[in-house]
């Protein structure tokens, strides 16, 4: 006791406080405040609207459960267990698929296997557009033959305009007179050039992309612009 008093009277007081007392004091007080906090915490109750929400969902879920149990077993059969009547959705869907497949086959046979032919088989892709203020013009089918286009594009240079759009110019593109420039929209997956020209990078254009051909007055291809499907076409 006298030692403590001596410490208090001397400068050792601070040492005594920081080394010994605060730790035991902290433990005791920590327990005390944690006890107080626990007592306070027990008084916290969930909000009343939460009880209402839970009870409503309980009632709803049991009502749904009951109704599903009360369903006659006949209505809960698997599709292959359904009767093969005209009301059977599986049967109807199968018929529809067969019909669509038959239509596709017929249309393919009618257009032939040549890419250039298929280019003109569809009215939508053969439509001549008047983009960039150019006058609309009709192109005869004979003016865009596979031979002329192939011979022109064999000297293509590939230039990447940006990440989205790949622009392919022929040697004649720079000198092409705009009054002869006619734009035709062609789906890239139907473009025969991408198969016949090895040095072109059109393969990067995914199916569904569109190509625009710039034609000269002699019907040769002067420029091809490929716009991917996701691009700003």
């Amino acid at each position, binding site marked *: 006791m006298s030692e403590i008093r001596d410490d208090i009277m001397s400068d050792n007081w601070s040492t005594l406080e920081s080394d010994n007392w605060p730790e035991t004091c902290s433990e005791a007080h920590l327990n005390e405040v944690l006890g107080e906090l626990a007592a306070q915490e027990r008084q*916290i*109750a969930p909000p009343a609207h*939460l009880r209402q929400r839970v009870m409503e969902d309980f009632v709803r879920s049991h009502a749904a459960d009951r109704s599903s149990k009360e369903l006659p077993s006949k209505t809960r059969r698997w599709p292959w267990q359904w009767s093969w009547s005209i009301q059977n959705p599986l049967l109807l869907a199968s018929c529809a698929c067969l019909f669509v497949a038959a239509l596709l086959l017929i249309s393919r046979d009618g257009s032939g296997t040549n890419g250039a032919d298929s280019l003109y088989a569809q009215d939508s892709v053969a439509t001549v557009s008047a983009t960039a203020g150019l006058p609309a013009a009709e192109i005869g089918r004979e003016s865009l033959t596979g031979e002329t286009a192939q011979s022109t594009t064999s000297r293509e240079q590939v230039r990447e305009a940006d990440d989205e759009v790949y622009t392919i110019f022929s040697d004649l593109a720079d000198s092409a007179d705009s009054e002869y420039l006619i734009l035709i929209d062609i789906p890239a997956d139907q473009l025969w050039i991408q198969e016949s020209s090895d040095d072109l990078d059109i393969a990067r254009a995914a199916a569904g992309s569109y190509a625009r051909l710039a034609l000269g007055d002699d019907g040769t291809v002067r420029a091809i612009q490929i716009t991917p499907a996701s691009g700003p076409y």
Partner: protein
Amino acid sequence: MRGESDKKPDVDILRKAIGGDTEAFAELYDRWSGTVYRFALRLSGEQSIAEDVTHDLFMTLLRDGHQYEGRGKFSSYLYSMARHLVLHRLRRDRRFSQIDSDSEELDQIPADSTIDPLEGLARAESTARVRQAIFALPLHYREVVLLCHLHELSYAEAAEVIGCTIGTICSRLSRARDLLAQRLQIESGYLADHSARRQSEHRVAVGAKWGEK
């Protein structure tokens, strides 16, 4: 979180609730919703998460409650489920927001009329600091403090809830208490002198009252 022996066993009520007994479900909710809500509130620090977790837990009980066979304590089963739901939600939301000391959770605590208002204020302040310090702990320490101190689970029960050994609980709790004490001491020397400060504040306030008279 202590079960009372005079009450019906939780597992019986649960069976009835799963069977569609509304009264049984209401009893189950009234018995355990507070515990679940408080635990979720302090573990997540978000009132909206606590509400959602409490709701989801009772809905999950209806769906999967038949898996509980009454072997472990029902409270541990609920704590474990609540913990899982909170962690899942926190991971999903990726937010560990701080508890605001002025948040409305504090307002939910009803005032004790037997306590002097000034003393009550000082107590509220001190417990709010401790609450904040607990929430500032890393999650794996925080949950141990919540379970063992605020919800008064035994080490064995806490180990069952978290799914670790009792030794892990002890070491985590020890480390968490150290961190807690450090944090509180660093903040304002709070633990060392908070009692003295409370008393002096009280004396000053009483003196001011007398001075006014």
